């Protein structure tokens, strides 16, 4: 299936016609706002579009058909874990008992959700080998911030104020150093060794009494398991620092490696990656954080507690003064967490172990089949993803990884992650996940083989790609130099209205 679809249509504002739509809510009495002083009231607008329901429906249905999604086809986006989103999870999250529950509902009428959250915490703690879990953070990056703020609180509680640095491998996702900065730490970047792991000597040299924490992604962003992890964690603790695990790649290791048991003090989990909650076009997700004993007192509040009589309640304000406090309103992205809970209960222990085994199997299969097609810098077995490089292809044909990616679109596939991690030239990070059929993987390999052939024989096909999508390559320069971030009907400074 080609990613071709309809053409773009007009915006809501261009479709709007005065007097259309309405009758969704009852009409208020004329004097409804009479008691409100005039200075508080709007004098005009808001200028929102007016459309009738059939137009609204067609507008969004047509827009949806311009999208490629997991439900459309293979999405081997490395580090994103684009696995299939089971539909039972959507049904579950929409059950009125879950969807209509107010976040300030008294504990006694929220027992269902409280139990679900508590059980989910237990399950994630078991999977991560951690002592306890908070479900509060709204995303992985927010989980990272939560974790690093807890590390900060830990050192402060011990009067250790000299720890101002966080070590981060140079292959790390950008959120790691950004998180360290937000938490008031300086990031020290550690180079990778030729085999793709962390350079141990550089790591040891950078560790010291000034180190608050190290942030390690394992498996790394290169899709490789850090075989020296035991040595690294020992060095970290010897230096009095704490070890944070970026759990973005958890899909590779469930049942085989438990970060907490191995010595990590804190980790975050991306439920929208490993636990199948849908990506939604960029969110929402959730970023639960697991901790060991050292950080337990600092977990965000309120925690979900289980009483001796088997009922559940939220911690009360002020009940645990050592907490770092809140990182957001209310308890967490409960609607997302319902989906993660459903996924975990559906799979059970055996199922989750199988998920990791199959993810790793699929990635190694693709890696083996692509070995002759693109450069594959690391020959040892990969985990759930692997990195390939278009460096040789670029030298030989002038076609870059970007061109290969755009041409894959014409073959009906979403491209892998490109130009990440930063440590590999012309990188492609490929993560098939465990929910793809073997035929799909083979078709993907075939497509890449043909594209590499085209790069040699007719490179213009790649440079001009994509040609079958609703739009072709975009002018991102003008978009950044003269940003048009909002529809302005009056000024008319818009591009031509597509009909």
């Amino acid at each position, binding site marked *: 299936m080609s990613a071709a679809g309809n*053409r773009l249509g007009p915006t809501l*504002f261009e479709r709007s016609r005065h007097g259309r*739509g*309405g009758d*969704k809510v*009852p*009409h208020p009495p004329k004097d409804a*706002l009479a008691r*409100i002083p005039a200075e508080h009231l709007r004098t005009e607008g*808001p200028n*929102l579009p007016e*459309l009738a*329901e059939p137009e609204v429906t067609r507008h*969004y249905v047509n827009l*949806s058909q*311009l999208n490629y999604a*997991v439900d*459309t086809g293979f999405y081997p986006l490395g580090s994103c874990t684009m696995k299939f989103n089971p539909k039972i999870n959507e*049904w579950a999250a929409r059950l009125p*008992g879950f969807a209509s*529950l*107010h976040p*300030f*509902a*008294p*504990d006694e*009428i929220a*027992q269902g959700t409280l139990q*679900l959250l508590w059980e989910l915490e237990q399950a994630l703690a078991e999977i991560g080998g951690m002592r306890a879990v908070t479900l509060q953070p709204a*995303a992985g*990056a927010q989980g*990272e911030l939560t974790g690093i703020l807890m590390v900060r609180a830990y050192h402060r509680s011990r009067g250790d104020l000299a720890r101002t640095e966080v070590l981060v491998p140079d292959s790390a996702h*950008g959120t790691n150093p*950004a998180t*360290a900065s*937000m938490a008031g730490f300086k*990031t020290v970047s550690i180079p990778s060794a030729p085999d793709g792991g962390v350079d141990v000597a550089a790591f040891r040299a950078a560790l010291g009494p000034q180190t608050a924490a190290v942030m390690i992604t394992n498996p790394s962003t290169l899709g490789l398991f850090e075989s020296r992890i035991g040595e690294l964690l020992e060095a970290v603790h010897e230096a009095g620092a704490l070890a944070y695990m970026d759990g973005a790649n958890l899909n590779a290791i469930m049942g*085989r*490696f438990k970060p907490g048991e191995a010595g990590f003090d804190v980790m975050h989990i991306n439920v929208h990656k490993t636990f199948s909650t849908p990506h939604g076009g*960029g*969110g*929402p997700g959730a970023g639960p954080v697991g901790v060991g004993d050292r950080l337990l007192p600092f977990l965000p509040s309120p925690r979900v507690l289980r009483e001796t009589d088997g009922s559940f309640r939220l911690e009360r304000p002020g009940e645990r003064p050592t907490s770092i*406090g809140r990182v*957001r*309103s209310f308890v*967490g*992205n409960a*609607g997302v967490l*319902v989906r993660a809970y459903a996924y975990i209960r559906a799979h059970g*222990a055996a199922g989750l172990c199988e998920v990791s085994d199959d993810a*790793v199997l699929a990635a190694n299969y693709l890696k*083996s*089949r692509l070995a002759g097609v693109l450069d594959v810098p690391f020959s040892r077995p990969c985990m759930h993803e692997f990195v390939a490089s278009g460096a040789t292809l670029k030298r030989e044909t002038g076609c870059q990884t970007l061109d290969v990616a755009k041409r894959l679109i014409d073959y009906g596939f*979403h491209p892998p992650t490109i130009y*990440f991690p930063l440590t590999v030239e012309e990188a492609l990070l490929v993560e098939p996940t465990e929910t793809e059929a073997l035929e799909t993987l083979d078709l993907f390999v075939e497509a890449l083989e043909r594209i590499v052939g085209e790069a040699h024989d007719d490179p213009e096909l790649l440079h001009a790609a994509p040609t079958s999508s609703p*739009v072709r390559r975009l002018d991102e320069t003008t978009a*950044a130099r003269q940003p048009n*971030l909002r*529809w302005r009907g009056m000024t008319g400074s818009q591009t*031509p209205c597509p009909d």
Partner: protein
Amino acid sequence: MLETIGVASVDDLFGDIPAPLRASGLNLPPPESEAELADRLCDLAERNRVDLAGFLGAGAYRHYVPAVVDQLLLRGEFYTAYTPYQPEISQGTLQTIYEYQSLLGELTGMDVVSASHYDGATATAEGALMACRATRRERVLVSHAVHPHYRETMRTYFSGGELALDEIPLVADGRGAGTTDMAALERMLADPDRPVAGVVVANPSFLGLLEPMAEVSRLAHVAGALFVAVAEPVSLAVLASPAAYGADIAVGEGQPLGIPLSYGGPYLGILGCREPLVRQIPGRLVGMTTDVDGRRAFVMTLRAREQDIRREKAASNICTNQALCALAASIYLAAIGPHGLRDAAAMGAARATELETALAAAGAPRLHSAPYLNEFAVRVPDAAEIHRRLLHRGVLAGLVLADVEPGDASLADALLVCATEVTTSREIEMFATALREEIERGRQLALSGIASGAFGADDAGAAI
């Protein structure tokens, strides 16, 4: 597959895990079929009570969501798509984000609105941090009447650096009681040794009151500070917008725009600003452009602000946002239209007037006299106990304010209640009748010398 790879078993692929660190499986319950799972989930959902007559707001609101919203959100092309990094095959997501930015731009009056932040609390915290970066000052003032969760979140976000967060007190007595104290604000802004980067005030406030936002704006700007306004999106159909009263940054919670209550999330952080601050705003932005053939198209832009490029110098570490919730808000606004949104807001106000009258007649007058839109606090003797008893009679009587502000004597015996367009007269009558009876019962017990707390007033989860 194993043959192609060249190994004998899957175990061989995990050789890099050092032997002493290998786990051996997971200690979790066994798998369940879809039918069994469905049963389990139904059972859990039914242990929540969502059928009560509800008067609870306090930052999350019940509104009527047109049926078309969820129908469209269920399209797999929307909810199973990823962040639109390959714009050529993500125009659906990209155009809807641009439209969201535009719709919220209209409501708030801000030039630039981000593609979403996590929720109102984090959006407010980020708005405050923006003010610090833009002014290069280190102190932020936040009204005590801003939602307690937002203030707590701000405190947590501020704990990473050298920034100071001070609360502006509220007026204690008189007509303006419960609103932000302008004289105190002016004094706090005048400290020459501690210049202020931003002033954060909510309208309506957490207590439901309308605040003197134009005056806040004037005072803040005279002192060289930026004004961060916390706004509620449905109210913006009828209330003056942040742009109208001079805000530099507008933040708020988008949940009332077609997003289910869902015990607190996923919600929608609204974050917008005037054009000169655009480079400071965290989160994704979508812009309109053209493709190589001159066709209109949409693309994520000003990307160099974000964490994957800026890394340790990024304004924020945000990556995943609340995109699908922003889509829900857009579809809601498209479906309900400007007149429908106005009607929802005005109907809420009308019901709130009815509620105020009914509760006052039942013995629970308003705590304050300043104007409100659709939410307000009432004085109820022994509020926590009465709230519990009303719960058992099928009424969710708002929020016990002492639960979120335990140290505040002025909120000791008070409930925060709200009404929206879905509140019915029948529910209001039910609430008022039950309340009158419970207040009377409490009065009788007090008169006969027995404290109401002595009789079965156990907080520990009595079954309903």
